[in-house]
């Protein structure tokens, strides 16, 4: 069932086992005056209706009865899919999971991974400008998303430089993505640090699934031109491969001041080879290489005049990676995986540079012994970075650093009552060059009274390890000129005593197959945080003589001075009233309550952080399969206001109309952000000095032609 090669690379390895993947699950306020939209009430009412209908299959499965009535020609046009995906596989998971399938991505018309994430409950995606996004799960959304672990095929793309993910360089041919699995909440016992608020796991198709040639190209007003190419094949001896290339150019978003700095160009290519030898061994090798020019606007601060300049220039980003994975099935109750990868990122921004080499090696074993389903693993990661100083206002000391991470985890899923009640306990153990051993225990309970309902509860402790940004980073901001002309700066100094941020998370959830056509997933959480990142003023301003010339300095540092709680609820119903119409909804509610801890010198950043996450989010996706091979999708989205960003609430819509033509062609017309000419979604991380004004995300449209052979 499912391809054993690298299918382990995701949550659901084809065997519906547990919620921890064998692989790659590495160890990721303010009362706005909003009235709850009508449709939310509609969905909630439907959800509360007593389920009393005939047992049926999951709404995502194709009805055998329908297949029977198709003509031969229609049968020859159906797309083959693997059996496990969607709500069926998430059913037995004691965690808040949402799966975005490759088909969902295609039908949404999203051209980037962050845009594809918007339909998931609990995930806040806000586009900052053409090439930057703020992403967060259950709060704390920011440009660098520091408490969410992001993986692509088992490779961590979170950088320890500034603790976060640079979304602009995480890309692939979107048609090759099999699914994106999003776990909200701390990942429980999976290895790898910083899966504090969630994990986003991007899983590409196996090489066997991408035989043939695919070429797609198109353009529009913002998505100005793009081309994707992929070719794959295989031999009888069990070797399958694919190679791909893609390139795009994107235009700037809307700037009220006319400074259209954020154009974006990228080229990327890569390959994957899967080889299985007999029934016992499977190998995968894959790699990517990319080069981009990302237009951006940064503040360059220096101690010599002009003290602070806004620089609109390109960031030169490039890099590559190579990954190898070996999976051995020792018996049907015992298998092991060994994976290693090398990743290189070159980041040359107008105000700093970073060159980083990361080496990683991981091992996982999965054992089944009587009622126990045990997983354990070890991992090591070394990340060597070199900082290139461009301006005196942004420096790292030391300039060359190696970050070490050692992880181990063990987890046991114990079947208290077969197929009905299971308890999963485990812990992750983490050691970095910033911290001592940090245990992260977790306990989860899953109750499945029948095959139409499941309930789960979880308690987890998680830790966000410090990054170079807190330990080694010196960031200066120009405040102004004193009356006598002496410049006045504020500077965040490196805090070598920055401690890990801590989370105690309590979660509950339920999944109900209310009828053959209606499914609903509900999750609630209460997260208690300590030692959260704060911006502390450490003393009174004083006259400092170096770097010359003399200047006044207000000293500050990143500290652990905030604490508080967040709580919320996420509801995701799915309804298929008739075979050719599917409705998916997602509503997320988040209430954040953060404050300074006693004795903290925090400058008052809590309101800004709380005000940068929306209290309400709503998305409704309607998908139609029409006759004559036409498909139509419509997505309505609402996000409530972000007072900490000075961004108003907005609602917008995306739409896609596609025709399947003969000879393997498909033509699609996509419109995004249609309800206004433009709307801003996010400014900049709260508290960081910046001169950036809000960029409006434009109404856009593009056409795409795809050929598959």
């Amino acid at each position, binding site marked *: 069932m499912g391809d054993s090669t690298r299918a382990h690379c995701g949550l659901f390895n084809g065997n519906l086992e547990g919620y921890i993947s064998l692989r790659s699950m590495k160890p990721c306020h303010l009362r*706005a*005056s909003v009235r709850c*939209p*009508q*449709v939310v009430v509609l969905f909630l009412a439907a959800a509360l209706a007593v389920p009393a209908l005939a047992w049926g299959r999951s709404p995502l499965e*194709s009805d*055998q009865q*329908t*297949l*029977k009535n*198709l*003509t*031969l*020609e*229609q*049968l*020859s*046009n*159906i*797309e*083959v899919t*693997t*059996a496990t995906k969607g709500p069926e596989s998430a059913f037995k998971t004691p965690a808040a999971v949402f799966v975005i399938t490759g*088909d969902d991505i295609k039908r949404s018309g999203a051209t980037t991974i962050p845009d594809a994430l918007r339909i998931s409950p609990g995930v806040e995606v806000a586009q900052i400008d053409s090439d930057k996004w703020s992403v967060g799960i259950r709060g704390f959304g920011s440009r660098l998303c520091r408490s969410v672990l992001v993986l692509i095929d088992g490779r961590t793309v979170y950088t320890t430089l500034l603790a976060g993910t640079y979304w602009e360089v995480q890309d692939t041919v979107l048609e090759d993505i099999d699914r994106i699995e999003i776990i909200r909440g701390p990942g429980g016992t999976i290895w790898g640090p910083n899966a504090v608020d969630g994990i986003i796991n991007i899983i590409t198709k196996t090489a066997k*699934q991408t*035989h*043939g040639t695919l070429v797609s190209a198109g353009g529009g007003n913002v998505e100005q031109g793009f081309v994707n190419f992929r070719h794959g094949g295989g031999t009888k001896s069990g070797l399958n491969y694919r190679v791909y290339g893609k390139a795009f150019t994107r235009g700037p978003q809307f700037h009220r001041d006319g400074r259209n700095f954020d154009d974006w160009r990228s080229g990327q290519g890569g390959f994957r080879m899967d080889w299985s030898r007999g029934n016992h061994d499977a190998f995968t090798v894959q790699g990517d290489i990319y080069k981009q020019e990302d237009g951006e606007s940064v503040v360059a601060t220096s101690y010599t005049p002009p003290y602070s300049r806004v620089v609109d220039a390109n960031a030169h980003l490039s890099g590559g990676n190579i990954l190898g994975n070996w999976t051995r099935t020792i018996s049907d109750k015992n298998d092991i995986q060994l994976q290693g990868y090398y990743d290189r990122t070159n980041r040359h921004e107008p105000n700093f540079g970073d060159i980083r080499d990361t080496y990683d090696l991981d091992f996982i074993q999965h054992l089944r012994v009587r009622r126990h389903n045990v997983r354990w693993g070890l991992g090591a990661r070394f990340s060597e970075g070199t900082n290139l100083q461009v301006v005196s206002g942004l420096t790292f000391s030391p300039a060359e650093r190696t970050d070490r991470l050692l992880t181990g985890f063990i987890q046991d899923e114990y079947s208290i009552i077969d197929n009905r009640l299971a308890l999963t306990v485990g812990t992750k153990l983490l050691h970095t060059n910033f911290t001592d051993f940090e245990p992260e225990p977790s306990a989860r309970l899953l109750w499945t009274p029948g095959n139409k309902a499941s309930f789960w509860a979880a308690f987890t402790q998680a830790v966000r390890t410090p990054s170079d940004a807190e330990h080694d980073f010196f960031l200066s*901001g120009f405040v102004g000129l004193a009356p006598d002309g002496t410049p006045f700066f*504020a500077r965040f100094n490196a805090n070598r005593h920055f401690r890990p941020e801590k989370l105690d998370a309590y979660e509950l959830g339920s999944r109900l197959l209310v009828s053959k056509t209606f499914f609903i997933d509900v999750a609630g959480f209460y997260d208690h945080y300590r030692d959260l990142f704060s911006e502390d003023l450490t003393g009174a301003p004083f006259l400092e003589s170096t770097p010359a010339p003399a200047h006044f300095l207000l000293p*500050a540092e990143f500290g652990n001075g905030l604490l508080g709680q967040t709580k919320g609820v996420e509801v995701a119903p799915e309804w298929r009233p008739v*075979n*050719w*119409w599917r409705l998916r909804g997602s509503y997320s509610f988040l209430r954040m309550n953060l404050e300074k801890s006693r004795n903290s010198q925090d*400058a*008052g950043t809590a*309101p*800004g952080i709380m*005000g940068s996450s929306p209290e309400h989010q709503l998305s409704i996706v309607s998908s*139609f*399969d*029409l*006759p004559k*091979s036409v498909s139509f999708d*419509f997505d*309505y989205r*609402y996000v*409530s*206001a972000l*007072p900490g960003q*000075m961004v*108003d*609430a907005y*609602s917008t819509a995306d739409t896609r109309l596609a025709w*399947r033509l003969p000879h*393997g062609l498909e033509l699609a017309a996509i419109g995004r952000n249609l*309800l206004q000419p433009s709307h801003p979604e996010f400014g900049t991380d709260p*508290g*960081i*000095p910046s001169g950036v004004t809000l960029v409006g995300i434009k109404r856009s449209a593009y056409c795409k032609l795809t050929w*598959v052979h």
Partner: protein
Amino acid sequence: MPPRPGRFTGNTSPNRRTIFALLIFIFVLSGIHTELVGQQLQATESQIKAAYLFNFGKYVSWPPFSSEHFLICVLGRDPFGSALDEIVAGEKIAAKQAEVRRIRSFHDASSCQMLFIASSEDAQIRSVLPELANVPVLLVSDLPGFVERGGMIQFVTEGNRVRFLVNLKAAQKVGLTFSSELLKVAKSVQRDAPGVL
């Protein structure tokens, strides 16, 4: 740096009219198309092949046979799970009640009207096919090279879809006729005598 003062203007609820407009739009569109069958369904490979087998029953004619049932047999490791049984349940093919049977050896195949040979039987194909050379059984498989070796219909996966190849000569030799509907949809039709075995 101290955070910027909030200048939040407080606008907010999504426009009620917009929501109703959207809902109406959705319902109107759905109202126009009431008798459609989705052509972009998705199904697993074995579900599609099971549906094909059932369909072949409609587009192939058998010489008259005495048994009361139309037997679809599966030889080897069954890839269909419950898909084939579900599709066939309660249906009639060639005016006879359709039934699925799993057989262990090709000796039992002569009472079948349709035989699906699973990919596990690769090694035995050479001995199976001559045995059935004179019996009016529709031979279907997804083994590579099946039609070249004398099989009648072979499934192939192309891109992400399931198609089939036809060997017309092999079928005509045992008295089976294929409707032109079937031949039109086939990916290719072999009309000359194959190099049997």
